[in-house]
Protein backbone atom coordinates (compact mmCIF):
# COMPACT_ATOMS: atom_id res chain seq x y z
CA UNK A 1 0.00 0.00 0.00
CA UNK A 2 1.01 3.59 -0.59
CA UNK A 3 2.06 5.90 2.21
CA UNK A 4 -0.67 7.68 4.09
CA UNK A 5 -0.58 11.26 5.35
CA UNK A 6 -0.01 11.52 9.11
CA UNK A 7 -2.95 13.12 10.91
CA UNK A 8 -2.38 15.84 13.49
CA UNK A 9 -3.61 15.12 17.03
CA UNK A 10 -7.09 16.59 16.47
CA UNK A 11 -7.45 14.78 13.14
CA UNK A 12 -8.53 17.82 11.09
CA UNK A 13 -5.08 18.42 9.57
CA UNK A 14 -2.37 16.12 8.22
CA UNK A 15 1.31 16.10 7.40
CA UNK A 16 1.96 15.24 3.76
CA UNK A 17 5.20 14.57 1.90
CA UNK A 18 5.10 15.80 -1.69
CA UNK A 19 7.69 16.14 -4.43
CA UNK A 20 7.01 19.24 -6.51
CA UNK A 21 9.17 20.03 -9.53
CA UNK A 22 11.89 17.78 -8.13
CA UNK A 23 11.95 19.24 -4.62
CA UNK A 24 10.63 17.36 -1.59
CA UNK A 25 8.24 19.17 0.78
CA UNK A 26 6.82 18.24 4.16
CA UNK A 27 3.60 20.17 4.68
CA UNK A 28 1.11 20.21 7.52
CA UNK A 29 -2.18 21.17 5.91
CA UNK A 30 -5.82 21.52 6.87
CA UNK A 31 -7.41 18.42 5.30
CA UNK A 32 -9.62 20.74 3.24
CA UNK A 33 -6.65 22.13 1.30
CA UNK A 34 -6.71 21.34 -2.41
CA UNK A 35 -3.50 20.60 -4.28
CA UNK A 36 -4.03 23.91 -6.12
CA UNK A 37 -4.19 25.91 -2.88
CA UNK A 38 -1.18 24.05 -1.44
CA UNK A 39 0.84 24.92 -4.54
CA UNK A 40 -0.22 28.55 -4.69
CA UNK A 41 -0.58 29.51 -1.03
CA UNK A 42 2.03 27.32 0.69
CA UNK A 43 4.69 26.75 -1.97
CA UNK A 44 4.31 30.14 -3.73
CA UNK A 45 3.99 28.35 -7.07
CA UNK A 46 1.43 30.72 -8.54
CA UNK A 47 1.82 29.52 -12.15
CA UNK A 48 -1.14 27.15 -11.75
CA UNK A 49 -4.24 29.33 -11.91
CA UNK A 50 -7.59 29.21 -10.13
CA UNK A 51 -10.07 29.97 -12.87
CA UNK A 52 -13.21 28.25 -11.62
CA UNK A 53 -12.17 25.99 -8.69
CA UNK A 54 -14.74 23.42 -9.92
CA UNK A 55 -12.97 21.37 -12.57
CA UNK A 56 -14.57 23.29 -15.42
CA UNK A 57 -11.80 25.44 -16.95
CA UNK A 58 -8.47 23.56 -16.84
CA UNK A 59 -6.32 26.51 -15.77
CA UNK A 60 -5.17 24.57 -12.67
CA UNK A 61 -3.93 21.56 -14.68
CA UNK A 62 -0.71 19.96 -13.36
CA UNK A 63 0.98 16.59 -13.85
CA UNK A 64 0.51 14.08 -11.03
CA UNK A 65 2.93 11.16 -11.34
CA UNK A 66 3.14 12.19 -15.00
CA UNK A 67 -0.61 12.31 -15.69
CA UNK A 68 -2.52 15.52 -16.30
CA UNK A 69 -5.12 16.31 -13.64
CA UNK A 70 -7.11 19.28 -12.38
CA UNK A 71 -5.46 20.33 -9.11
CA UNK A 72 -8.54 22.21 -7.84
CA UNK A 73 -10.49 18.97 -7.29
CA UNK A 74 -7.71 17.01 -5.57
CA UNK A 75 -7.30 17.15 -1.80
CA UNK A 76 -3.60 17.47 -0.94
CA UNK A 77 -4.06 15.08 1.99
CA UNK A 78 -4.58 12.24 -0.53
CA UNK A 79 -1.17 12.76 -2.16
CA UNK A 80 1.38 11.59 0.42
CA UNK A 81 4.49 10.34 -1.37
CA UNK A 82 3.34 11.52 -4.82
CA UNK A 83 5.12 13.59 -7.45
CA UNK A 84 3.75 16.80 -8.98
CA UNK A 85 5.04 18.86 -11.87
CA UNK A 86 3.64 22.34 -12.42
CA UNK A 87 4.25 24.84 -15.22
CA UNK A 88 7.25 26.08 -13.23
CA UNK A 89 8.82 22.64 -13.71
CA UNK A 90 8.17 22.19 -17.44
CA UNK A 91 11.28 23.88 -18.85
CA UNK A 92 14.36 21.90 -19.87
CA UNK A 93 17.56 22.59 -17.88
CA UNK A 94 18.85 24.68 -20.78
CA UNK A 95 15.73 26.76 -21.48
CA UNK A 96 12.19 26.47 -22.74
CA UNK A 97 10.97 22.98 -23.60
CA UNK A 98 10.03 22.45 -27.28
CA UNK A 99 6.34 22.65 -26.30
CA UNK A 100 6.81 26.00 -24.54
CA UNK A 101 8.90 27.32 -27.44
CA UNK A 102 6.15 26.30 -29.87
CA UNK A 103 3.59 28.26 -27.82
CA UNK A 104 5.82 31.35 -28.10
CA UNK A 105 6.52 30.82 -31.80
CA UNK A 106 2.81 30.43 -32.61
CA UNK A 107 1.59 33.23 -30.33
CA UNK A 108 -0.61 30.63 -28.63
CA UNK A 109 -1.94 33.03 -25.98
CA UNK A 110 -3.15 36.56 -25.48
CA UNK A 111 -3.58 37.33 -21.76
CA UNK A 112 -1.75 34.15 -20.76
CA UNK A 113 -4.06 33.20 -17.89
CA UNK A 114 -4.93 29.79 -19.29
CA UNK A 115 -1.41 29.10 -20.61
CA UNK A 116 0.10 27.24 -17.62
CA UNK A 117 -2.85 24.85 -17.70
CA UNK A 118 -2.71 24.54 -21.49
CA UNK A 119 1.00 23.66 -21.32
CA UNK A 120 0.66 21.04 -18.58
CA UNK A 121 -2.41 19.60 -20.27
CA UNK A 122 -0.65 19.44 -23.66
CA UNK A 123 2.37 17.73 -22.10
CA UNK A 124 0.14 15.09 -20.50
CA UNK A 125 -1.97 14.78 -23.64
CA UNK A 126 1.03 14.12 -25.89
CA UNK A 127 2.11 11.32 -23.53
CA UNK A 128 -1.40 9.85 -23.79
CA UNK A 129 -1.12 9.93 -27.58
CA UNK A 130 2.29 8.27 -27.36
CA UNK A 131 0.66 5.49 -25.32
CA UNK A 132 -1.94 5.07 -28.08
CA UNK A 133 -4.95 6.24 -26.07
CA UNK A 134 -8.01 6.94 -28.24
CA UNK A 135 -10.29 9.99 -27.95
CA UNK A 136 -13.95 10.67 -28.68
CA UNK A 137 -13.12 11.59 -32.30
CA UNK A 138 -10.86 8.59 -32.98
CA UNK A 139 -12.54 6.59 -35.76
CA UNK A 140 -11.08 3.13 -35.14
CA UNK A 141 -10.50 2.53 -31.44
CA UNK A 142 -7.92 -0.19 -32.12
CA UNK A 143 -5.83 1.64 -34.75
CA UNK A 144 -2.81 3.85 -33.96
CA UNK A 145 -3.69 7.47 -33.21
CA UNK A 146 -3.07 10.11 -35.84
CA UNK A 147 -2.86 13.54 -34.21
CA UNK A 148 -5.07 15.68 -36.49
CA UNK A 149 -6.44 19.15 -35.64
CA UNK A 150 -9.71 17.50 -34.65
CA UNK A 151 -7.85 15.13 -32.28
CA UNK A 152 -5.96 18.00 -30.65
CA UNK A 153 -9.14 20.04 -30.19
CA UNK A 154 -11.05 17.15 -28.64
CA UNK A 155 -8.18 16.11 -26.36
CA UNK A 156 -7.63 19.71 -25.19
CA UNK A 157 -11.32 20.48 -24.66
CA UNK A 158 -10.86 20.49 -20.88
CA UNK A 159 -8.83 23.70 -21.18
CA UNK A 160 -10.83 26.82 -21.87
CA UNK A 161 -9.27 30.01 -23.25
CA UNK A 162 -11.34 33.17 -22.83
CA UNK A 163 -9.05 34.94 -25.33
CA UNK A 164 -9.90 32.20 -27.83
CA UNK A 165 -6.30 31.56 -28.85
CA UNK A 166 -7.44 28.08 -29.85
CA UNK A 167 -6.21 28.01 -33.48
CA UNK A 168 -2.70 28.97 -32.40
CA UNK A 169 -2.76 26.56 -29.45
CA UNK A 170 -3.65 23.73 -31.85
CA UNK A 171 -0.86 24.76 -34.24
CA UNK A 172 1.70 24.97 -31.41
CA UNK A 173 0.79 21.55 -30.07
CA UNK A 174 0.92 19.95 -33.51
CA UNK A 175 4.37 21.45 -34.06
CA UNK A 176 5.61 20.18 -30.72
CA UNK A 177 4.13 16.75 -31.46
CA UNK A 178 5.82 16.60 -34.85
CA UNK A 179 9.17 17.50 -33.26
CA UNK A 180 8.89 14.70 -30.67
Amino acid sequence: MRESAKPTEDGWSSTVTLTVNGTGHNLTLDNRTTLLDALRERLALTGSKKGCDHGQCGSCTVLLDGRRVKSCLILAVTLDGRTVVTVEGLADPTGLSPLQAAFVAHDAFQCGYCTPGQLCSARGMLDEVARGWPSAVTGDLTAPVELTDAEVRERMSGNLCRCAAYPNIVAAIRDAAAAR
Partner: protein
Amino acid sequence: MKAFRYHRPADVAEAVALLDAEPAAAYLAGGTNLVDLMKLGVQRPELLVDVTGLPLDTVEVLPGGGLRIGATVRNSDLAADPVIRREHPLLSRALLAGASGQLRNLATTAGNLLQRTRCVYFQDTGKACNKREPGTGCAARHGQNRDLAILGWSELCVATHPSDLAVALVALDAVVEAHDPGGAREIPVAELHRTPGEHPERETSLPRGALITAVRVPPLPFARRCTYLKARDRASFAFAVGSVAAALDLDGDTVRDVRLAYGAVAHRPWRAYRAEEALRGRPFTAELAAQAADAELAAARPLPHNGFKVPLIRNLTVRALTTLAGTAPR
Protein backbone atom coordinates in the same frame (compact mmCIF):
# COMPACT_ATOMS: atom_id res chain seq x y z
CA MET B 1 -16.18 23.45 3.38
CA LYS B 2 -16.89 21.57 6.57
CA ALA B 3 -13.83 20.15 8.35
CA PHE B 4 -13.28 16.39 8.05
CA ARG B 5 -10.92 13.66 9.14
CA TYR B 6 -9.21 11.52 6.53
CA HIS B 7 -8.37 7.84 6.49
CA ARG B 8 -6.89 5.36 4.02
CA PRO B 9 -8.20 1.89 4.91
CA ALA B 10 -5.91 -1.12 4.46
CA ASP B 11 -8.61 -3.34 2.96
CA VAL B 12 -12.28 -3.56 1.96
CA ALA B 13 -13.34 -4.81 5.40
CA GLU B 14 -11.77 -1.82 7.15
CA ALA B 15 -13.33 0.60 4.66
CA VAL B 16 -16.82 -0.85 5.23
CA ALA B 17 -16.34 -0.90 9.02
CA LEU B 18 -15.31 2.78 9.03
CA LEU B 19 -18.43 3.82 7.10
CA ASP B 20 -20.58 1.67 9.36
CA ALA B 21 -19.18 3.27 12.52
CA GLU B 22 -19.49 6.88 11.42
CA PRO B 23 -22.86 8.20 10.19
CA ALA B 24 -21.28 11.26 8.54
CA ALA B 25 -18.54 9.38 6.68
CA ALA B 26 -18.20 9.14 2.89
CA TYR B 27 -16.02 7.17 0.50
CA LEU B 28 -13.64 9.29 -1.52
CA ALA B 29 -12.43 8.06 -4.91
CA GLY B 30 -11.21 10.50 -7.61
CA GLY B 31 -12.99 13.28 -5.76
CA THR B 32 -14.03 15.02 -8.98
CA ASN B 33 -17.67 15.06 -7.87
CA LEU B 34 -17.48 14.75 -4.08
CA VAL B 35 -14.83 17.47 -3.54
CA ASP B 36 -16.78 19.77 -5.86
CA LEU B 37 -19.99 19.22 -3.84
CA MET B 38 -18.11 19.64 -0.55
CA LYS B 39 -16.88 23.05 -1.72
CA LEU B 40 -20.49 23.97 -2.50
CA GLY B 41 -21.63 22.81 0.94
CA VAL B 42 -23.98 20.28 -0.69
CA GLN B 43 -22.14 17.33 0.86
CA ARG B 44 -20.73 17.73 4.37
CA PRO B 45 -18.91 14.54 5.39
CA GLU B 46 -16.94 14.52 8.66
CA LEU B 47 -14.74 11.57 7.69
CA LEU B 48 -13.40 10.74 4.24
CA VAL B 49 -12.47 7.12 3.63
CA ASP B 50 -10.13 7.15 0.65
CA VAL B 51 -10.67 3.99 -1.40
CA THR B 52 -8.05 4.67 -4.07
CA GLY B 53 -5.38 2.67 -2.22
CA LEU B 54 -7.52 -0.51 -2.17
CA PRO B 55 -6.54 -3.26 -4.60
CA LEU B 56 -9.60 -2.66 -6.82
CA ASP B 57 -7.83 -1.13 -9.81
CA THR B 58 -7.62 -3.91 -12.39
CA VAL B 59 -9.63 -5.02 -15.41
CA GLU B 60 -9.86 -8.84 -15.40
CA VAL B 61 -11.02 -11.08 -18.21
CA LEU B 62 -13.25 -13.75 -16.64
CA PRO B 63 -13.15 -17.43 -17.65
CA GLY B 64 -16.50 -17.30 -19.46
CA GLY B 65 -15.41 -14.26 -21.51
CA GLY B 66 -16.92 -11.54 -19.35
CA LEU B 67 -15.01 -8.79 -17.62
CA ARG B 68 -14.60 -7.60 -14.07
CA ILE B 69 -13.78 -3.91 -13.86
CA GLY B 70 -12.37 -2.79 -10.51
CA ALA B 71 -14.18 0.04 -8.70
CA THR B 72 -11.11 2.28 -8.63
CA VAL B 73 -9.95 1.81 -12.24
CA ARG B 74 -9.61 5.33 -13.60
CA ASN B 75 -11.99 6.25 -16.40
CA SER B 76 -9.08 7.04 -18.75
CA ASP B 77 -7.39 3.69 -18.11
CA LEU B 78 -10.67 1.86 -18.68
CA ALA B 79 -11.38 3.70 -21.94
CA ALA B 80 -7.86 2.89 -23.21
CA ASP B 81 -7.76 -0.73 -22.03
CA PRO B 82 -7.06 -2.91 -25.08
CA VAL B 83 -9.63 -5.56 -24.14
CA ILE B 84 -12.32 -2.92 -23.53
CA ARG B 85 -11.54 -1.23 -26.84
CA ARG B 86 -11.81 -4.52 -28.70
CA GLU B 87 -14.62 -6.38 -26.89
CA HIS B 88 -16.70 -3.62 -25.31
CA PRO B 89 -16.07 -0.47 -27.33
CA LEU B 90 -19.39 0.95 -26.08
CA LEU B 91 -17.68 1.52 -22.71
CA SER B 92 -14.75 3.35 -24.31
CA ARG B 93 -17.11 5.43 -26.43
CA ALA B 94 -19.30 6.46 -23.49
CA LEU B 95 -16.30 7.26 -21.28
CA LEU B 96 -14.51 9.26 -23.95
CA ALA B 97 -17.69 11.26 -24.61
CA GLY B 98 -17.65 12.47 -20.99
CA ALA B 99 -15.78 15.09 -18.97
CA SER B 100 -12.17 15.90 -20.06
CA GLY B 101 -8.81 14.16 -20.23
CA GLN B 102 -7.72 15.59 -16.88
CA LEU B 103 -10.96 14.55 -15.16
CA ARG B 104 -10.97 11.05 -16.64
CA ASN B 105 -7.43 10.57 -15.26
CA LEU B 106 -8.92 10.99 -11.77
CA ALA B 107 -12.49 9.70 -12.07
CA THR B 108 -13.12 6.05 -11.14
CA THR B 109 -15.61 3.38 -12.21
CA ALA B 110 -17.63 3.46 -8.98
CA GLY B 111 -17.36 7.23 -8.52
CA ASN B 112 -18.68 7.74 -12.03
CA LEU B 113 -21.69 5.49 -11.38
CA LEU B 114 -22.45 7.22 -8.07
CA GLN B 115 -21.89 10.81 -9.17
CA ARG B 116 -24.75 13.08 -8.16
CA THR B 117 -27.20 14.91 -10.42
CA ARG B 118 -26.12 18.16 -12.13
CA CYS B 119 -29.51 19.77 -11.33
CA VAL B 120 -28.42 23.36 -10.63
CA TYR B 121 -30.93 23.71 -7.78
CA PHE B 122 -29.44 20.66 -6.08
CA GLN B 123 -26.02 22.34 -6.28
CA ASP B 124 -27.27 25.63 -4.78
CA THR B 125 -27.85 25.40 -1.03
CA GLY B 126 -29.94 28.59 -1.22
CA LYS B 127 -32.67 26.80 -3.23
CA ALA B 128 -35.35 24.32 -2.22
CA CYS B 129 -34.42 20.75 -3.08
CA ASN B 130 -36.05 17.56 -1.83
CA LYS B 131 -32.99 15.54 -2.74
CA ARG B 132 -30.58 17.67 -0.71
CA GLU B 133 -33.04 18.46 2.09
CA PRO B 134 -36.11 16.21 2.09
CA GLY B 135 -39.38 18.09 2.54
CA THR B 136 -38.16 21.50 1.35
CA GLY B 137 -39.71 21.27 -2.12
CA CYS B 138 -38.32 21.07 -5.65
CA ALA B 139 -37.22 24.40 -7.14
CA ALA B 140 -36.70 22.77 -10.53
CA ARG B 141 -40.25 21.46 -10.95
CA HIS B 142 -41.51 24.94 -11.81
CA GLY B 143 -38.11 26.53 -12.42
CA GLN B 144 -35.62 26.15 -15.26
CA ASN B 145 -35.97 22.49 -16.15
CA ARG B 146 -34.67 22.30 -19.72
CA ASP B 147 -31.90 19.87 -18.77
CA LEU B 148 -34.02 17.64 -16.55
CA ALA B 149 -36.14 14.50 -16.84
CA ILE B 150 -38.83 13.44 -19.30
CA LEU B 151 -39.24 9.89 -18.00
CA GLY B 152 -39.87 8.38 -14.58
CA TRP B 153 -39.90 11.61 -12.55
CA SER B 154 -42.13 12.44 -9.60
CA GLU B 155 -43.59 15.70 -8.32
CA LEU B 156 -40.87 15.63 -5.66
CA CYS B 157 -37.88 15.49 -8.05
CA VAL B 158 -37.30 15.87 -11.78
CA ALA B 159 -33.50 15.41 -11.77
CA THR B 160 -31.50 13.31 -14.22
CA HIS B 161 -28.52 11.05 -13.68
CA PRO B 162 -25.56 12.59 -15.53
CA SER B 163 -23.22 9.64 -16.13
CA ASP B 164 -22.41 8.53 -19.68
CA LEU B 165 -20.67 5.35 -18.50
CA ALA B 166 -23.78 4.24 -16.60
CA VAL B 167 -25.86 4.35 -19.80
CA ALA B 168 -23.44 2.01 -21.55
CA LEU B 169 -23.26 -0.34 -18.54
CA VAL B 170 -27.05 -0.55 -18.35
CA ALA B 171 -27.21 -1.41 -22.04
CA LEU B 172 -24.62 -4.17 -21.53
CA ASP B 173 -26.45 -5.87 -18.61
CA ALA B 174 -23.57 -5.10 -16.24
CA VAL B 175 -23.74 -6.06 -12.56
CA VAL B 176 -22.35 -4.15 -9.58
CA GLU B 177 -20.45 -6.09 -6.90
CA ALA B 178 -20.61 -4.44 -3.47
CA HIS B 179 -19.73 -5.05 0.17
CA ASP B 180 -21.65 -3.73 3.15
CA PRO B 181 -21.74 -4.66 6.84
CA GLY B 182 -24.19 -7.47 5.98
CA GLY B 183 -21.74 -9.07 3.53
CA ALA B 184 -21.22 -9.18 -0.22
CA ARG B 185 -24.03 -8.48 -2.69
CA GLU B 186 -24.66 -8.05 -6.39
CA ILE B 187 -27.05 -5.65 -8.11
CA PRO B 188 -27.65 -5.26 -11.85
CA VAL B 189 -26.61 -1.73 -12.85
CA ALA B 190 -30.13 -1.35 -14.29
CA GLU B 191 -31.46 -1.68 -10.72
CA LEU B 192 -28.71 0.33 -9.02
CA HIS B 193 -30.27 3.77 -9.50
CA ARG B 194 -33.85 4.42 -8.41
CA THR B 195 -36.59 6.60 -9.80
CA PRO B 196 -37.25 9.42 -7.31
CA GLY B 197 -40.82 8.56 -6.24
CA GLU B 198 -41.50 9.73 -2.68
CA HIS B 199 -37.81 9.62 -1.75
CA PRO B 200 -35.52 11.54 -4.11
CA GLU B 201 -32.87 11.55 -1.36
CA ARG B 202 -32.51 7.78 -1.83
CA GLU B 203 -30.67 7.52 -5.10
CA THR B 204 -29.56 3.92 -5.26
CA SER B 205 -30.71 0.53 -4.05
CA LEU B 206 -27.40 0.02 -2.21
CA PRO B 207 -27.65 -0.14 1.58
CA ARG B 208 -26.01 2.75 3.43
CA GLY B 209 -22.26 2.34 3.71
CA ALA B 210 -22.02 -0.15 0.84
CA LEU B 211 -18.69 -0.12 -0.96
CA ILE B 212 -18.76 -0.90 -4.67
CA THR B 213 -15.80 -3.17 -5.35
CA ALA B 214 -16.27 -3.98 -9.05
CA VAL B 215 -18.59 -3.94 -12.04
CA ARG B 216 -19.00 -7.17 -14.01
CA VAL B 217 -19.84 -7.08 -17.71
CA PRO B 218 -21.12 -10.35 -19.21
CA PRO B 219 -19.89 -11.47 -22.62
CA LEU B 220 -21.97 -10.13 -25.53
CA PRO B 221 -20.22 -10.75 -28.86
CA PHE B 222 -22.52 -8.47 -30.87
CA ALA B 223 -21.64 -5.58 -28.53
CA ARG B 224 -18.72 -4.89 -30.84
CA ARG B 225 -21.31 -3.45 -33.22
CA CYS B 226 -22.29 -0.50 -31.06
CA THR B 227 -22.50 3.26 -30.90
CA TYR B 228 -22.87 5.97 -28.27
CA LEU B 229 -24.51 9.16 -29.51
CA LYS B 230 -24.44 12.14 -27.19
CA ALA B 231 -26.23 15.43 -27.89
CA ARG B 232 -24.81 18.36 -25.93
CA ASP B 233 -24.63 22.12 -25.99
CA ARG B 234 -21.05 22.25 -27.29
CA ALA B 235 -18.93 19.85 -29.32
CA SER B 236 -16.96 18.53 -26.36
CA PHE B 237 -16.59 18.75 -22.56
CA ALA B 238 -20.28 19.09 -21.71
CA PHE B 239 -22.81 16.86 -20.03
CA ALA B 240 -25.40 15.18 -22.25
CA VAL B 241 -28.70 16.87 -23.04
CA GLY B 242 -29.70 13.43 -24.25
CA SER B 243 -27.76 10.32 -25.22
CA VAL B 244 -28.33 6.91 -26.74
CA ALA B 245 -26.25 3.75 -26.30
CA ALA B 246 -27.02 1.06 -28.85
CA ALA B 247 -25.76 -2.34 -29.96
CA LEU B 248 -27.39 -4.26 -32.81
CA ASP B 249 -27.29 -7.86 -33.98
CA LEU B 250 -28.80 -8.46 -37.42
CA ASP B 251 -29.48 -11.81 -39.04
CA GLY B 252 -29.72 -10.72 -42.66
CA ASP B 253 -32.32 -7.97 -42.40
CA THR B 254 -33.89 -9.27 -39.21
CA VAL B 255 -33.11 -7.90 -35.78
CA ARG B 256 -31.81 -10.92 -33.88
CA ASP B 257 -30.98 -8.92 -30.78
CA VAL B 258 -30.52 -5.32 -29.69
CA ARG B 259 -29.49 -3.27 -26.66
CA LEU B 260 -30.73 0.27 -26.23
CA ALA B 261 -30.37 2.72 -23.34
CA TYR B 262 -30.95 6.45 -22.91
CA GLY B 263 -29.03 9.00 -20.86
CA ALA B 264 -29.97 12.39 -19.39
CA VAL B 265 -33.70 11.64 -19.58
CA ALA B 266 -34.41 10.25 -16.10
CA HIS B 267 -33.23 9.87 -12.52
CA ARG B 268 -31.48 6.74 -13.66
CA PRO B 269 -29.84 5.53 -16.85
CA TRP B 270 -32.86 4.39 -18.87
CA ARG B 271 -32.81 0.95 -20.45
CA ALA B 272 -35.26 1.11 -23.37
CA TYR B 273 -36.82 -2.35 -22.90
CA ARG B 274 -40.01 -1.45 -24.79
CA ALA B 275 -38.07 -0.23 -27.80
CA GLU B 276 -35.90 -3.36 -27.75
CA GLU B 277 -39.04 -5.51 -27.63
CA ALA B 278 -40.49 -3.64 -30.61
CA LEU B 279 -37.34 -4.31 -32.63
CA ARG B 280 -36.54 -7.97 -31.86
CA GLY B 281 -37.46 -10.48 -34.54
CA ARG B 282 -38.60 -7.87 -37.09
CA PRO B 283 -37.02 -6.86 -40.40
CA PHE B 284 -34.98 -3.73 -39.70
CA THR B 285 -35.97 -0.45 -41.31
CA ALA B 286 -35.61 3.18 -40.28
CA GLU B 287 -39.39 3.24 -39.81
CA LEU B 288 -39.20 0.35 -37.40
CA ALA B 289 -36.48 2.15 -35.44
CA ALA B 290 -38.70 5.24 -35.16
CA GLN B 291 -41.69 3.13 -34.08
CA ALA B 292 -39.55 1.44 -31.47
CA ALA B 293 -38.43 4.80 -30.07
CA ASP B 294 -42.04 5.98 -30.04
CA ALA B 295 -43.05 2.87 -28.11
CA GLU B 296 -40.48 3.71 -25.44
CA LEU B 297 -41.25 7.42 -25.39
CA ALA B 298 -45.02 6.93 -25.13
CA ALA B 299 -44.45 7.10 -21.36
CA ALA B 300 -42.55 10.42 -21.60
CA ARG B 301 -43.95 13.38 -19.66
CA PRO B 302 -41.85 16.35 -20.71
CA LEU B 303 -41.50 19.35 -18.37
CA PRO B 304 -42.31 22.91 -19.50
CA HIS B 305 -38.81 23.52 -20.89
CA ASN B 306 -37.68 20.16 -22.21
CA GLY B 307 -40.32 18.97 -24.68
CA PHE B 308 -37.56 18.92 -27.31
CA LYS B 309 -35.95 15.94 -25.59
CA VAL B 310 -38.69 13.62 -26.89
CA PRO B 311 -37.94 14.13 -30.61
CA LEU B 312 -34.23 14.43 -29.76
CA ILE B 313 -34.14 10.94 -28.26
CA ARG B 314 -36.35 9.58 -31.03
CA ASN B 315 -34.01 10.98 -33.70
CA LEU B 316 -30.87 9.82 -31.89
CA THR B 317 -32.38 6.32 -31.67
CA VAL B 318 -33.08 6.25 -35.40
CA ARG B 319 -29.65 7.59 -36.26
CA ALA B 320 -27.87 5.14 -33.93
CA LEU B 321 -29.72 2.08 -35.22
CA THR B 322 -29.65 2.97 -38.92
CA THR B 323 -25.92 3.66 -38.66
CA LEU B 324 -25.36 0.27 -37.04
CA ALA B 325 -27.56 -1.44 -39.62
CA GLY B 326 -25.68 0.31 -42.41
CA THR B 327 -28.93 1.70 -43.85
CA ALA B 328 -29.24 5.39 -44.59
CA PRO B 329 -31.13 7.41 -41.98
CA ARG B 330 -34.25 9.12 -43.19
